[in-house]
């Protein structure tokens, strides 16, 4: 019996999950959470740069049927691709340090950041119906991100 009690007391403490520690988890994991949020921000920057690049004529145009590849010769598309690679690198660094569902849920903030950037940087108009649709998509992706067991 004594041996059993001893073995229980010596059992290594299981690393708590987010639900067990609540806010303390965020304080302790601020670095990977920050990386995922920075990844979302860089993805947004990349999307905006790709959009600017896609709507400007490229420096070099390939003949058809390879015409669709010409856009990669645009300066803005090049910078956009670098931003995408940067965001992918941050994602790969953060992923082993966070549960997948949490990382995926946090990364869905791009569905909020991209429309905001479209409005602020590209001066696009967003009708109310479309805005409502975007909010449904944001809610859905967040819920999907946190629905893993």
């Amino acid at each position: 019996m004594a041996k059993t009690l001893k073995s229980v007391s010596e059992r290594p403490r299981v690393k708590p999950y987010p639900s067990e520690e609540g806010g303390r988890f965020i304080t302790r994991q601020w670095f990977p959470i920050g990386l995922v949020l920075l990844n979302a921000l860089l993805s947004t920057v990349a999307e905006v740069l790709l959009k600017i690049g896609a709507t400007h004529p490229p420096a070099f145009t390939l003949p058809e049927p390879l015409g669709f590849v010409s856009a990669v010769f645009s300066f803005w598309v090049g910078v956009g691709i670098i931003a995408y690679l940067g965001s992918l690198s941050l994602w790969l660094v953060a992923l082993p340090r966070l549960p997948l569902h949490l990382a995926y849920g946090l990364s869905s903030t791009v569905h909020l950041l991209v429309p905001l950037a479209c409005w602020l940087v590209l001066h696009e108009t967003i009708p109310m119906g479309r805005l409502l649709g975007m909010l449904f998509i944001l809610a859905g992706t967040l819920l999907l991100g946190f629905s893993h067991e």
Partner: protein
Amino acid sequence: MLTLHTFALVALSQLALATGEVFLKHASGSDLKPIAHGAIQTGWYTIGIASMSIWFFCWLHLMRFFELNRLFAFEGVSPLLVACASALFLGERITIRAWFASFLIALGITLVAVF
């Protein structure tokens, strides 16, 4: 404007993105599937990267026809496809909450397509 041509490209891009993610996940292994090694792993990675490249070029092409805020909303399809593909090919479970989330995303995309 959403025509049959652009709709087909949106569908192809999201299908390619989801396929790429599933193949990359399959190559790197999961709790339910062991990590593949050697030529097989390289093959999965190659298919994954090729699919991602298809997504990238389709996406870049589509950006010429749509406002970014409208086009980006269609990215909501990929989590749905990934969830379904994970269940079908990687043996992962889809919860009731995930089905409800899928319904919200589908409703949101319909609204974005209409307005």
